[in-house]
């Protein structure tokens, strides 16, 4: 490789073109090299794409994103340390006080002391059982979550074996439900014939979840009706807020129960939080879904009665919360069955108001 063609003019614009010899000596330009290899080259089909030249990222609202990140971050380590230490201290104080009280009582009278100790033990046992129940509730919720994630993964990958595992877990989850026995039997009959992951999941959804969806919808309708009625009829300020909150929380808990995610108090709180997070993520009022707020809130109904219009809007919001709760608690995402619509739910809920 000593012989080189002269470089085309203009290749080195700022300096005089180096000759072959001087170029090699200075080490600025290298001649062509061919290295013969023994091992086969890796397939270009699997090579990563050639990286593009680094371009400036498009404007993305950095300040807002930073603010969102700050907001989304949990409490800082210091704050957590403080709260943890404070709670521990409180528990210590309380425990010590109770213990002192019991020993003092024991010193004063054996009978009273024994009774106090017994009560203490009972309380501790009950607390333990409560904690266990909460833990079981959380485990059930986690199972629903993992089921949904597995179903989504199986559907996306088209993996029949994964879908079969999901369906088996789903059937096991609902094995004790008498009202689903029919659907589970039909599913068992048909599932061997389906050789597509999405078809199998769709069949499981229509056979197992359709009755549950209907029950959950009935819950949502009942809650929306309650909230609408309370807003329209209760004369006390803030009483309607309390009713709405209670009705929504109860609705969320019942929906979770229907889908097999029975949870204790903490678990319910946890579901409520994820439901509200879901609503925030998907648009609070979902104006695109329906125009109830503009029609009922600002239009005809509010002309008739302001409270009544507000009742309908609150009912619509409750229906929206219920829909979000269904999506959060459902072990399979809505795919084969249509997602319930807020307008439809509200229409049925309000029709029911007058029927009952």
């Amino acid at each position: 490789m000593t012989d080189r063609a002269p470089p085309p003019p203009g290749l080195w614009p700022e300096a005089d073109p180096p000759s072959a010899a001087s170029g090699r000596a200075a080490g600025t330009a290298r001649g062509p090299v061919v290295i013969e290899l023994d091992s086969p080259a890796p397939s270009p089909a699997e090579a990563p794409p050639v990286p593009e030249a680094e371009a400036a990222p498009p404007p993305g609202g950095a300040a807002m994103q930073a603010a969102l990140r700050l907001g989304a971050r949990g409490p800082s380590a210091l704050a957590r340390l403080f709260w943890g230490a404070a709670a521990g201290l409180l528990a210590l104080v309380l425990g010590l006080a109770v213990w002192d009280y019991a020993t003092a009582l024991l010193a004063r009278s054996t009978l009273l002391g024994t009774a106090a100790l017994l009560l203490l033990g009972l309380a501790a046992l009950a607390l333990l059982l409560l904690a266990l129940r909460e833990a079981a509730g959380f485990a059930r919720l986690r199972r629903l979550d993992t089921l949904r994630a597995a179903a989504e993964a199986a559907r996306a990958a088209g993996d029949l074996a994964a879908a079969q595992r999901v369906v088996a877990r789903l059937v096991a989850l609902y094995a004790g439900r008498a009202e689903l026995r029919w659907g589970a039997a039909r599913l068992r009959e048909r599932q061997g014939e389906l050789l597509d992951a999405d078809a199998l999941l769709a069949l499981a959804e229509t056979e197992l979840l359709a009755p549950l969806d209907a029950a959950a919808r009935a819950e949502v309708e009942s809650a929306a009706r309650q909230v609408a009625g309370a807003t329209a009829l209760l004369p006390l300020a803030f009483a309607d807020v309390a009713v709405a909150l209670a009705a929504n929380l109860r609705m969320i808990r019942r929906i979770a129960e229907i889908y097999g995610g029975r949870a204790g108090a903490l678990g319910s709180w946890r579901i409520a939080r994820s439901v509200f997070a879901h609503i925030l993520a998907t648009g609070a009022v979902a104006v695109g879904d329906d125009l109830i707020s503009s029609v009922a809130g600002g239009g005809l109904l509010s002309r008739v009665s302001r409270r009544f219009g507000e009742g309908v809007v609150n009912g619509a919001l409750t229906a929206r919360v219920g829909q979000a709760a269904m999506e959060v608690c459902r072990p399979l995402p809505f795919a084969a069955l249509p997602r319930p619509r807020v307008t439809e739910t509200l229409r049925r809920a309000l029709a029911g108001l007058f029927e009952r």
Partner: protein
Amino acid sequence: MLGRIADELARGVEAAGAAISEALLEPVVRLGVTGLARSGKTVFITSLVANLMDRGRMPQLAAAGPGGTIRSVWLQPQPDLTLPRFDYEGHLAALTGEAPRWPESTRSVSELRLSFRVQPAGLLAGLAGPRTVHLDIVDYPGEWLLDLGLLERDFAAWSAETLRRAEGRAHAAGFRALLASIDPAAPYEEGQARALARGWTEALAAARAAGLSDCTPGRFLLPGELAGSPVLTFAPLPAPAAPAPRGSLWREFARRFEGYKAGVVRPFFRDHFARIDRQIVLVDVLGAIHAGPGALEDLRRALADLLGAFRPGRNSWLTGLLAGRRVERILFAATKADHLHHRQHPRLTAIMEALVREAKDRADFRGALTAAMSIAALRATTEETVEHGGERLDVVRGTLLATGRPAALYAGELPEDPAALLSPARQGAERWLGRDYAIMHFAPARLTLRPGEGPPHIRLDRAAEFLFGDRLR
């Protein structure tokens, strides 16, 4: 004279009435079942009708489910009074009888109409009440289908192409020897013409037996009542050096070729293909892969020819015939998917897609909805995983057609990239390199069907949903 005019008038009024009723009252879906010979058209139609009448096994057809819109289904007498009825009962009895067997191959056209009573769902459903949707299905011999490719060729082009393809093939040797002894410019003589036609028919039959697809003209193989008529008494000829004189063999054969196109092919196309709304193209991909690269390439070419005939909007004789009707949905289905374990179905589908890539892209571009699937209209096997030679094999089990004995089959691993099969086929490879495929033919299994269940299948419901599920809502 007057009688004839009145007759014409009555027929015109009838046709107009039917068109209006179709547009306003009772929509008709014309399902075109397109497939070469032995691709399983008859079994597909039989199983589809049986599964639509007993919808227990159609969970993927949304209208047939528990909350579905189909109220009832009725197998009607077909609307075309001059066509025989598709022998549904006979074929179903053959498939589901005590000693089940595949139905006889189709020898002529037949038709069937399935009428659905549909309760529409939706906001105004309560007002509308149930309505009727008809599904018209036509069955015909696959051999006839290849003739559609002839419509755009003249005798010289067809002869040249056909002879070029037949060149290296052993089964056409007799015909080539025959050809060598004649002069196309010589005066026409009927005995010679008959000998040539017979020789070509034999070559076609041998080609078909070898698994090849391009057997034109198709009526030579299944002549029916046309046997011996002049339109079936010709053969491809080498082009004469000088323009052939009047009255020569070449001129006479060219005339008969045109007559064949005008009198046999075009009516078939006009009556059965020009009015199709939805189309399923059944292709026995596995059989072609089994037969070797030559058969696969042949199949690809035949399909390209065939699907080219359906091109709407092209400036040819077709535009006038189509009169605005277009095929809205096309499903390319690789049949006999029950010969493969379901793990390999995506690969089979990919090969199917690659085979018809050109036609599919064109249809997509024109706005039609297309899809590819691996289906089995009648499932004859069950799946199993067995230990064999120290590794786990995903096999299918069934009863062999040839011996009647139960067997497990692993057909060979299809490549992930369809080009691994299609490229060697296109380059004219003799056999698959480093791969081996074997398809055994399975006999239909003996079935005991519960009430409400149709015969077992693979993805027939999904195919039905794609093809006409939207018209049943």
